[in-house]
Every structure is written in structure tokens, then in C-alpha cells.
């Protein structure tokens, strides 16, 4: 754990991201899909939607930290709602 100053929370954080990437790669191979056009009026695949979700979630967390400043885990609920919306409508 000393290597690169690893801590459990960051290891879990990267573990989850790595798992998401692997899951979506397997999904893309097993169930190929055609891109679709959503409310952003751009063509997106599942991978694009995952990227939009992760990037948006980072900003949601920062906004929560900057504006609310407490109860950070609740920001994750907002992120989940956001993720569902992205996968449904984008």
C-alpha cells in the first residue's frame, strides 16, 4: 500500500471505474448496439453514455462539495439519478 501512497478509498474508487470499463467492454462485445440520437441530438453508444455519466458525476460531486459542503455521500444519490437519466434519454 505504500507504493504510490495508495489508500483503500482511492483503490476502491479506481477498482469501481476499472470494473465499469470491463463490464461495458464485455457488454459491447456480447450485445453489439447501434448508436442512437437522444436529447443532446448527438449519436451516443453505451460507452459514450458511461463517459458522460462519469464526467458529469465528477462535476456533481464538486458542486455538492462547493455549495452544500456536507454529507458528501448524498451527492452519489444525485449522481445515480443523473446516470439513470443519461442512460434513458441521452
Amino acid at each position, binding site marked *: 500500500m505504500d507504493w504510490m*501512497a*495508495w*489508500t483503500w478509498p482511492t483503490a476502491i474508487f479506481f477498482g469501481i471505474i476499472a470494473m465499469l470499463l470491463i463490464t461495458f467492454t464485455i457488454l459491447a462485445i456480447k450485445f453489439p448496439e447501434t448508436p442512437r440520437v437522444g436529447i443532446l441530438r448527438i*449519436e451516443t453508444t453505451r460507452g459514450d453514455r458511461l463517459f458522460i455519466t462519469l*464526467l458529469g458525476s465528477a*462535476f456533481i460531486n464538486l458542486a455538492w*462539495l462547493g455549495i452544500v*459542503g456536507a454529507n*458528501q455521500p448524498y451527492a452519489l444519490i444525485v449522481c445515480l439519478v443523473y446516470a439513470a437519466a443519461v442512460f434513458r434519454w441521452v
Partner: protein
Amino acid sequence: MEKTVNQKAWFLVLPVLVLVAFSAVIPLMTVVNYSVQDTFGNNQFFWAGLEWFEDMLSSQRMWDALARQAIFSAIILAIEIPLGIIVALNMPKRGFWASLCLVLMSLPLLIPWNVVGTIWQIFGRVDIGLLGHTLDALGISYNYTQDIRAAWVTVIVMDVWHWTSLVALLAYAGLQSIPDAYYQAAKIDQASRWAVFRYIELPKMAGVLMIAILLRFMDSFMIYTEPFVVTGGGPGNATTFLSIDLVKMALGQFDLGPAAAFSIMYFLVILLISWVFYTVMVNLDKREGK
């Protein structure tokens, strides 16, 4: 005949993956690790949670640097893109002069950043520099080490001098790819010069112009060397852009935690804007392909 499917070729990209992991992914992960910890040196780290992010979000210093950075990028894009297009439109289309123009335009692009900085640092000096001395002789007060406006003008003019040719070359390449038939049709319709530009040249250049905007935005948003050499971020903090501030914090003060939190936010902003540009670019291409 059945097509044989063979995915083994993927192993050929393995060396690239290893290289990218060592040069980009693992350093980035280290930054994330630093951003949630505190250190007093000696490679000892203490858990700090989201404290540094909170600090940075409420730090006036970071917001000021971000504002300066955004203003700088907006100004240079507003100057370089139209200027590059104008230059490209006025360049000779073929023959000796076209080649000469291309060579001359590429010259500034070949000069390393710190050399560009040094050139302008000396060029602008009032005692020995051609620009500074001339302006001084004309009675215009110009001193980029003390006057905020002079420092900004110097840094912006330097960037325009260094990078407008890139925009011009890209726009020129876009213009060259327009078949003559378009211009002939426009002539038959007695289209004005503006109409030719608006309905033929600009749409045909849109793709390369998006690349030019993306490149110039990313480069200007990460600019470090040139302003550092010329003004050192001064006078005061007037030209301290994001990366200059970041280096001061990380290496000057050795505040690894706050600097790491700062870097992550900086990275997220660049990632977001680049993604927007990239998406627009790809969609432009698709619409053109239809």
C-alpha cells in the same frame, strides 16, 4: 465464404497500453492518491479526505487563476481564428509564392516555447529590445514587468505571433480541398465575395477549423512556458495562469495535496471542454458525410 474472426491482433496494441499506463494512467492515479492525503515530506502520507478539494473550491487564488486563464484563451481564440482565416484566404493558391508562404508560415511553429518566450522577453525590453525601445522612443509607456496591461498585451501578441500560422495552415488546407466547380457555380450565380465565403468556403473549412479551435484551446489553456519566461506570472499575479499557479503550488511550496486537488479540477475542465469540441467535430463530419 465464412469470414474468420480473429481477435488476437488486439495483443499487438499491448505495448502501447503499457506505455500509456506508465506515462499517463499511473501518474494520474498518483495525483488522485495525493489529493486525498497530506504529506510533510519524507514520503509519509496522512489521510485528509476531501479537505483539499474543499480548500481549493473556496480558494480565491484558484478562481482568479481560472478566470485569467479563461479570459486569455477566449482572447487568443477570438484573435487567432479570424486572423488565421483572413491570412489563409489571402495566400496564393499555387506556384512559387504559395510554397514560400507555406515555409514562412511554418517557421514560428518550429520554434520551441522557451525560445519564443526568450525572444519576446528581449524584444519587449525597454533598454535593449527593439519593440520596447521603439515604443519608449514614441513616448508610449510600455513596461511589461510593471504594467499589467503591457504584460497582457505582450503575452497575447506573443501567442498570436506563435500560433496564428497553425490556424492559417489548417484553414489553407481546407480551402485547397474545395473543387473549382463550386467557385464556377458561384460565378454563374453572380455570388458576392461574402456569399462565396459564407456558403462555400466557411462550410468546407468547418471541419479543420474545429480542429484548429480544439488545438488552440487546449494549448492555450495549458500554457506555461512562454508567460513564465516573459513575465514569470507577474506583475503581481496578473499573468499567473492555471499551470503557472499549479507549478508554484506543487513545486514551489511543495503543497502536494492542494496541488493534486487543483490538478484534478483543472483536468476535468479540460476534459469537459475537449469532449464538447470533439463531439461537435465528429457530428459535423457525419452531417457532411450524409
